[in-house]
């Protein structure tokens, strides 16, 4: 809801363009009625909500925090507060003073709005102080006609107020922590989760231990940090992990790989195409790492049996996994982040990205056939004995569970697609699906709970807090401002910049933290760049961050897992080898995807 609000700020900003001056709070009667109408509606909504909340409290018998507004609805000042990127600012302390006397105070809400009730009405002057950490404080003096209106028991609505960011020591400290976290992850010095936990702990330590020494070391409170954790993402990933845990134990991947060989009839080009599509489609619905974990061993066996270098099949497979994964909301962690933040549905991803992804796949197939042509020529027929062994391994091991998982999976896809019409969150769908499946197949519950990769969930929670701190101190605003100035309202330039910058950065920086940090920036650009309301820039981020994974060995977790298994079979994939084969693949797919998005939007 907050994000919807944020994304709609461009439109709102236009509405307020004639009256949004920094220091002036003027309740300008001269402003056109067209301009003022939308705000009145919002004010009415605010009042309605205010009354409704009071009603709920009184009916339920719960005593709300005592406020004078409970007693009467007179002497109210309403307003909205934004930052330099037109994002609502929550938690601004608004204090009303007449002389030295404090006659009212309140906090701004997540949507930036506030309702301030004044305790008394007999005063000659009234000043409102706006204070919040990481922003310059502002004072606004009310005009005599507004004071008169309040004294009559009326309500005054202020023009939207924009607070200016304050760059203090914590800005640099948090920036350094964030960059250090990215560097530690990229260098593999610590496990990703440990790196994110370390970043989060240092941020809390500075905020809580440094704050008593100096106000300038305050970052945010624990409660505030939790606002940045996207629980929709956490529960969606958790639900999908349980479903995947059931599917992966059915032997479906091994069966699919062996069937691919059978269908190809030993024609290596056809086998390559089928394997790439099988891997790609599996990656679109399951996570890429699981797909490659289970496809790699059987692919190596097929390649050895055919007498070809297994890397000539594995590399195209991992390319396909990274590229096709972005077709759906649940295909990659980055899409889950983007979908949740940008309010982009399962079907939105399908409609807007899948055609581009399929075109990129065609490019990838052509590229792979060309690059590995010499390896493919070495392919021979699989001897009968080896074929029997492969057939033994290519069996469905749990057909009943597979059947049930298939039905539940189908139901989940339908809910993902149609659930958006009833505002069904993807996380709820994933949890319903996971629970239904467990109730139906009655697995060992301990095993299923173990199947949830808690380290990954902790990674995401820690990451959200670190990125939240980065947002809190204003780094994201600085980046957003910089990119905003660079693209200067040019949508095409913004699209190209995000796709290619995202693509190249994802080759060296872990794409999940990168995407999480970029989301508010994309939100700002979506609200300010004309034509970006279609959320095209979110799709550009999805394409760049995911396809960028093909650029280097460390670009995606699926690459590292594939290399790990391949090495254990005696076929190591070095960093340089991956770069040599993967970087051109990145260029091919990014070019095609860029063209698609430019045509589509």
């Amino acid at each position, binding site marked *: 809801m907050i994000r919807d609000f944020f994304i709609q700020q461009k439109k709102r900003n236009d509405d307020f363009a004639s009256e949004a001056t920094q220091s002036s709070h003027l309740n300008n009667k001269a402003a056109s009625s067209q301009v003022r109408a939308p705000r009145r509606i919002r004010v009415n909504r605010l009042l309605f909500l205010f009354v409704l909340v009071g009603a709920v409290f009184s009916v339920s018998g719960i005593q709300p925090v005592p406020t004078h507004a409970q007693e009467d609805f007179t002497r109210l000042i309403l307003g909205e507060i934004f930052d330099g990127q037109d994002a609502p600012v929550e938690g601004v302390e608004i204090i009303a003073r007449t002389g030295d006397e404090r006659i009212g105070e309140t906090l701004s809400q997540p949507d930036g709005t506030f309702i301030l009730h004044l305790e008394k009405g007999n005063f000659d002057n009234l000043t409102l102080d706006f204070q919040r950490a990481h922003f310059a404080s502002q004072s606004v003096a009310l005009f005599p006609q507004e004071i008169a209106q309040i004294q009559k028991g009326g309500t005054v609505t202020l023009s939207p107020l924009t607070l200016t960011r304050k760059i203090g020591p914590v800005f640099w400290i948090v920036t350094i922590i964030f960059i250090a976290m990215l560097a530690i992850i990229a260098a593999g010095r610590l496990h990703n989760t440990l790196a994110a936990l370390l970043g989060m702990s240092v941020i809390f330590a500075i905020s809580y231990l440094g704050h008593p020494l100096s106000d300038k070391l305050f970052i945010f409170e624990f409660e505030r940090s939790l606002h940045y954790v996207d629980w929709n993402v956490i529960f969606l990933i958790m639900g999908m992990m349980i479903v995947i845990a059931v599917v992966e134990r059915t032997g479906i991947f091994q069966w699919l790989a062996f069937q691919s060989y059978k269908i190809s009839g030993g024609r290596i080009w056809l086998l390559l195409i089928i394997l790439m599509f099988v891997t790609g489609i599996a990656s679109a619905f399951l996570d890429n790492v699981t797909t490659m974990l289970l496809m790699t061993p059987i692919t190596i066996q097929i390649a050895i049996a055919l007498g070809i270098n297994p890397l000539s099949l594995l590399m195209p497979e991992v390319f396909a996994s990274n590229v096709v994964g972005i077709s759906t909301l649940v295909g990659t962690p980055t899409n889950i982040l983007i979908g949740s933040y940008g309010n982009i549905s399962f079907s939105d991803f399908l409609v807007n990205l899948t055609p581009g992804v399929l075109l990129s796949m065609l490019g990838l197939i052509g590229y792979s056939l060309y690059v590995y042509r010499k390896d493919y020529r070495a392919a021979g027929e699989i001897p009968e004995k080896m074929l029997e062994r492969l057939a033994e*391994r290519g069996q469905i091991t749990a057909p009943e569970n597979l059947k049930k998982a298939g039905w539940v999976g189908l139901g989940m896809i339908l809910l993902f697609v149609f659930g958006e019409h009833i505002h069904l969150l993807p996380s709820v769908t994933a949890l319903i699906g996971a629970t239904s499946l467990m109730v139906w197949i009655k697995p060992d519950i301990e095993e299923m709970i173990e199947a949830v990769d808690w380290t990954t969930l902790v990674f995401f929670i820690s990451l959200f807090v670190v990125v939240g701190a980065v947002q809190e101190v204003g780094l994201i605003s600085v980046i957003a401002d910089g990119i905003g100035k660079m693209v200067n309202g040019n949508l095409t330039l913004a699209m190209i910049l995000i796709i290619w910058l995202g693509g190249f950065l994802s080759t060296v920086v872990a794409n999940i933290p990168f995407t999480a940090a970029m989301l508010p920036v994309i939100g700002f650009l979506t609200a300010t760049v004309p034509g970006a309301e279609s959320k095209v820039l979110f799709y550009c981020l999805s394409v760049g961050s995911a396809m960028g994974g093909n650029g280097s060995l460390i670009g995606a977790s699926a690459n590292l897992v594939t290399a790990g298994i391949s090495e254990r079979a005696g076929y190591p994939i070095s960093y340089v080898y991956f770069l040599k084969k993967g970087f051109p693949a990145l260029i091919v797919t990014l070019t095609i995807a860029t063209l698609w998005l430019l045509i589509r939007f």
Partner: protein
Amino acid sequence: MTSTSPSPYILCLVRGGKESKNTVTKAIDLALEMDARLVFFHVIDAEFLNQSMMGTRLKVVYQALYDMADFAMEILKDRAERRGVKEVETIIREGNIVKQLRQAAIETQAKLLVIGRPIRSPGSNVFHDSELLNFANELAEIGEVEVLIVGDEGE
């Protein structure tokens, strides 16, 4: 009635793949020369999962790795049998390579251990140069096991 002592064991530590070709060839040559029983020994581990973000279901991963190793070992077994080695076995274990190999050497009472020198596996579950020599000395002390380290050229 004459009593014949059982053929000695040659333990060949191998992963499969191109890099193992010389090691396997050398082990087969020696098995034929010594009329020894040849055991291809493979240790699987999932250390690489530390680098992954999702999907760390070890049971499933180990099963997939086991199947892959089993397939590779069967191919090596076929190759040794075709060359004329009479008794060929395969052993696949999970865990730390040094511990598992030491255990297998003791269990089989191997007379010779043939080990390759992986050239591109930094940080993974393979022997590093210094470890290799230490391990060879240690085995020699425990059970008079001779260790042959095969380089890229097969020697």
